[in-house]
């Protein structure tokens, strides 16, 4: 009786947790992919993050900023696994605006580990002016800012199977989601049809084609693989602490299970006498009291 009430209480809590993803309703649901960082023990694959970074650098960065990411992050544990020297060398390929100097002038200098990735456009207006009025979103937390509705009962199942990858699933699907618009679909001017984009009309032209970005590790150079790699990279950019979080989480869960188990047996021991010999009530520990 008691235990099923407890379960009911948490089922209630879980069922009230129905809000999560609310975007993309009329569009196709992005198919779920296998990710190295999925599940309670999933962590990032550094090789995949390096490939994804290469795609970001060579393709996405033309239009999309990633302002919250610093060059030093490339060498952070749980990331793409660049050495500090490699990260510094990547930083030095970029020109960063600094200043004002002693003459009061802003100046350009090569990037350092402490710098953040410089945006491709000086401001949003410049980006819109160059891209036909469309503003490409900043990619720093993009993978956490995109979701789609699983609906009932999927959202409850997701809480039990630890599904948190709707952002990368969406990005991967979107990059390969360009198609001819269905009959009767009116495309907004200056847009393309993408079956996963909310509303269907996306401003971004198809960014990736097979063989466009060179891989040196033998990974297939297909749009499908590119999408997977860049989505993984963007997930890392949005959630760089994922590896540390899951590692600590495992330790915390083990600790809590042990603690709760010990507390359970302590509780059983303390209450045992009460439940089985009510007469012992008269001499109960630790004190007598009066009301």
């Amino acid at each position, binding site marked *: 009786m*008691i235990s099923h009430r*407890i379960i009911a209480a948490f089922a209630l809590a879980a069922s009230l947790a129905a809000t999560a993803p609310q975007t993309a309703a009329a569009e196709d649901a992005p198919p779920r992919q296998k990710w190295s960082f999925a599940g309670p023990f999933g962590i990032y694959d550094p090789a995949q993050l390096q490939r994804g970074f290469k795609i970001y650098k060579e393709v996405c960065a033309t239009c999309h900023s990633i302002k919250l990411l610093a060059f030093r992050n490339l060498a952070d544990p749980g990331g793409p696994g660049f050495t500090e020297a490699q990260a510094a060398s990547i930083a030095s390929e970029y020109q960063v605006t600094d200043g004002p100097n002693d003459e009061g002038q802003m100046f350009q200098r090569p990037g350092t580990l402490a710098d953040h990735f410089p945006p491709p456009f000086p401001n949003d207006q410049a980006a819109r002016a160059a891209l036909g009025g469309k503003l490409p979103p900043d990619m720093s937390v993009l993978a956490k800012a995109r979701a789609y509705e699983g609906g009932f009962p999927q959202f409850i199942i997701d809480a039990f199977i630890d599904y948190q990858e709707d952002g990368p699933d969406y990005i991967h699907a979107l990059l390969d989601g360009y198609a001819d618009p269905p009959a009767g679909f009116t495309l907004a001017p200056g847009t393309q049809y993408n079956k996963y984009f909310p509303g269907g009309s996306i401003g971004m032209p198809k960014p990736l084609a097979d063989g466009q970005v060179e891989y040196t590790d033998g990974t297939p150079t297909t749009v499908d693989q590119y999408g997977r790699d860049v989505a993984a990279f963007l997930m890392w950019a949005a959630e760089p602490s994922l590896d540390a*979080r899951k590692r600590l989480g495992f330790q915390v869960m083990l600790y809590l299970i042990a603690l709760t188990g010990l507390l359970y047996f302590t509780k059983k021991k303390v209450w045992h006498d009460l439940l089985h010999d009510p007469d012992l009530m008269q001499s109960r520990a630790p004190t007598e009291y009066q009301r």
Partner: protein
Amino acid sequence: MSGHSTYQPQSSFMQWMERRLPIASLMYSSFVAYPTPRNLNYWWTFGGILTFMLGVQIVTGIVLAMHYTPHVDYAFNSVESIMRDVNYGWLLRYLHGNGASFFFVAGYAHIVRGMYYGSYKEPREVLWILGVILFLLMVVTGFMGYVLPWGQMSFWAATVITNLFSALPGVGEPIVTWLWGGYAVGNPTLNRFYSLHYLLPFVIAGVVVLHVWALHMVGQNNPTGVEPKTEKDTVAFTPYATVKDGFFIGVFCLFYAWFVFYLPNYLGHSDNYIMANPGQTPTHIVPEWYYLPFYAILRAIPSKLIGVIALAGSIIILAFLPWLDTSRVRSASYRPLFRQFLLIFFAAVIGLGYLGSQEPTGGYVIAARILTVYYFGFLLVILPLLGLFEKTKPLPHSISEAVLSGGRT
């Protein structure tokens, strides 16, 4: 707190202290010797869990406040800086954000317990009303906290909710301008929400003290709803209640930790990872899950003013529960009809929560209206009438009798 304390200070220092500030004996009589009904089930552990969660929220919140910048231009990035650059900042933020959700999980469980076992009835009316005040404070504090990261949902939730006051005739518009500190949700709004979000938890802590004080005046209710009559009916708070609470706090923390470490963004809205943009309305503005039933009530009513009144009324009406319920029997275990209607009431609230998360169109609106009618119908009509007509089951003479006859609930 009730009755005299049996605390006898042993050391000379504590004897010296006892004559000047008898805080040790106060603690002793309140949290050690305090008699608690022996038949409490695990639904009675949520009070302790709520206290624990308040502590978690205050501690994580104070550290987060050291790193957060309440300014429209910096708030979003300062939260991201906490996630990226502050040592264990991601842990603090996920503990705090999910902590709010689990605070409400425990709060709702606590309210459900109180309603099911009739804990609001004489002599516990003030205790119950303090609880309703605590719930209101939680609602306001949680709402203001949700605004602070200054994402799209933060901004638009602030806009929608503060705009509700504009429904008040005559004074509405000036009140909204006053709340905003301007003519739109902006930097003054964020600043004052931050200030109040820091203040209100301490107000909650103060009301919790009153709540516990009132509890210790009247004693705890129990699953039978029959007051303890003899010493056999009660056990000492420590160790019996403390170890039981401790165990269930552990169980609760397992669920909490599962979300913090493995589903940290599950209960949030993805749009809140987009920086607030007053020029772009999200396609679908939804509040956090714990407000959804009330949001559904608001939207179920076509008139904005009446909707706002119903929204506020749906919580305030709970304060009158001790007088709306006319039955002399407390526990639903002995009130078969009440039990059925109450379980339907809980199901209706969950249903409203689901409808609150959906687009308010077609069948969803009709369903929300039916459930809203039941929400108020149950509290205002069914509850007063039930007490007059319901045939209740015979009550046990005492808690011990109920326990010994195996009728533990």
